[in-house]
């Protein structure tokens, strides 16, 4: 499938997000980032702590205000000042799943309230009976029992709590879900269950995901396309296997080389590449966003483009 005949659900154009710190100059967490997320796909965003991957997610759900650039959802601009009608629609259609199910659930509220809080906000139910029916359905969808609604979060294990977090997002009947490190704080065996749940929900409900993670082996398994972000800038973007087979940017190469592989024969003689940001000479020759191979984009200047093209053969 080429990108041209796919329908973009979310378009991010020259997005910049800044935080005002102590100094005069605001800190630029996201710097001129552009990419599209197509309907029905899972877009993986990877990068190290502090790279700005979470900030992009939060900018899309409009928790973080944007400094410049545009975020379009189904062709409509959703950042900055937004008409009330659209605002309500976006609040419902874009949902987020958070990293730590221990911290992201209100300890004092029952599951019933936690799951339906979003509905209260947008008055998304006709009567009490309708609300309860929706809660039961959302819990069943994530593999929990409707009876759990009357319990408190502390009564659940980490995996179950993450399911509650997913139910809370699903009840809004979203089209687009931002999953921010949804399995990082879970145990290995539970990870597989939650990943499987996310995949089957995508199939049955036609969801589109932005999957934010620093764990490349998980992203490789779940994502259709991957964007690599370093210090607020998108440095490479390609379809998953394409990226793993032909990484161009030195940061991507370093990141891929560091993934642990469950095979002692490889791990024992592994050479980890270290990324040195000073290897780019951008003083006169400025980098731009270019397509090196089909649907494979890299941030590079003219000299690097020639180098990468030679690598691509």
């Amino acid at each position, binding site marked *: 499938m080429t990108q041209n005949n796919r329908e973009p659900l979310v378009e991010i154009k020259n997005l910049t997000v800044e935080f005002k710190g102590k100094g005069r100059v605001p800190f630029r967490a996201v710097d001129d980032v552009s990419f599209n997320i197509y309907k029905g796909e899972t877009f993986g965003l990877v990068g*190290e*702590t502090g790279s700005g991957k979470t900030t992009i997610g939060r900018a899309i759900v409009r928790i973080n205000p944007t400094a410049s650039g545009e975020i379009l959802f189904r062709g409509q601009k959703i950042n900055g000042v937004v008409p009330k009608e659209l605002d309500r629609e976006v609040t419902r259609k874009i949902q987020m799943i958070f990293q730590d199910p221990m911290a992201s659930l209100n300890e004092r509220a029952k599951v019933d309230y936690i799951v339906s809080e979003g509905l209260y906000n947008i008055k998304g139910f006709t009567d009490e009976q309708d609300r309860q029916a929706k809660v039961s359905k959302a819990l069943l969808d994530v593999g929990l029992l409707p009876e759990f609604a009357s319990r408190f979060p502390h009564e659940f*294990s980490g995996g179950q709590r993450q399911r509650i977090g997913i139910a809370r997002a699903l009840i809004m009947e979203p089209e687009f879900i931002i999953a921010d490190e949804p399995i990082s704080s879970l*145990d*290995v*065996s*539970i*990870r*597989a*269950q939650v*990943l*499987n749940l996310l*995949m*089957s929900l995508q199939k049955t409900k036609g969801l589109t995901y932005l999957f934010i993670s*620093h*764990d*490349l*082996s*998980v992203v*490789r*398994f*779940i994502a259709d396309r991957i964007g690599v972000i370093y210090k607020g800038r998108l440095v490479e973007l390609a379809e*998953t296997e394409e990226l793993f087979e032909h990484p161009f940017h030195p940061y991507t190469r*370093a*990141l891929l*080389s*560091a*993934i*642990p*592989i*469950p*095979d*002692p*024969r*490889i*791990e*024992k003689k*592994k050479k*980890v590449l*270290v*990324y040195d940001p000073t290897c780019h000479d951008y003083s006169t020759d400025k980098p731009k966003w270019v397509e090196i191979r089909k649907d494979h984009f890299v941030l590079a200047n003219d000299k690097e483009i020639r180098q990468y093209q030679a690598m691509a053969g």
Partner: protein
Amino acid sequence: MTEPILSVRDLVVKFSLRGQILTAIRGASLDLYPGETLAIVGESGSGKSVFTKTWIGMLDANGWVDSGSILFEGKDLAKFTREREWLTIRGKKIAMVFQDPMTALNPLRTVGMQIQEALELHQDMRGEQAKARTIEILSEVGIDIPEVRYHQYPHEFSGGMRQRVVIAIAVACNPRILICDEPTTALDVTIQAQILELIRDLQRKMGATLVYITHDLGVVANVADRVAVMYAGEIIEYGTVDEIFFDPRHPYTWALLSSLPQLGIKGQPLYSIAGTPPNLFTDIQGDAFAPRNPNALKIDSVRRPPFFQVSPTHYAKTWLLDPRAPKVEPPETIRALRSKYERYAQ
């Protein structure tokens, strides 16, 4: 074979929680050989942290060693009761690196002082001499401009650098055994690789014995000579790293390896272990993994399996290895593991 440096036999550890007794370690035995790197793997709650904490007397106040022995340098650590006894071992002979470098360091004291404290306490160093050694250690763990860093506080360090400081404290006294409890879980992959390399270099220099506690099998493949798999407070299988990855025998080891996302096939559900780990408040009959094991035998729910020998270095606690047991093949993913990376392994 060489003499073990530490030898644990039939260790039982219990905790008293809200008036109930929880058995966290249910008869675990392990030999640790000098100079080796052993990885202990298992899910959270399997007891891997508690198990190693008994070697340095760091169980929480509501926990105790109920029976069994921990032999180290001719002493039985399981019999230790007083803090003064532990001070001759903890930090000095057996040291530990904790998972979260943010909580392991004191935020109110400079990094230099925290390392120096270990030297003054255990190495009998004082003043300028201790300071000079501290700066030396800081540079050994890869911290630039150690003279300046010495005077800084933990919040002025990044996560990876903080973990280097924690490692510096642990290695300050040249311990014979270094226990690393999930040392890289809180770190980025690129930093993780650097920390693993650092620990390996230090081990080579000090000649210490390393114990890694982790749930990340990729890390295990990287660091370990031998692997012990823990489940519900028991060591259920151990062997060399090659034996555990390419010839695992216990159904739980199969399940653990199969649920790795690296082994998943895109678009198909990943293998996941059904059910939940057993409740350790109750007495467990037979094989603790049996309720989650699709191939469980009748005897699994009646009698706890003993260790069966697979090779001189490889043992597993499963009735499947009994000569009378039916032949059960490991799942396809396990057999694929070896060939999966074949082309990269050359």
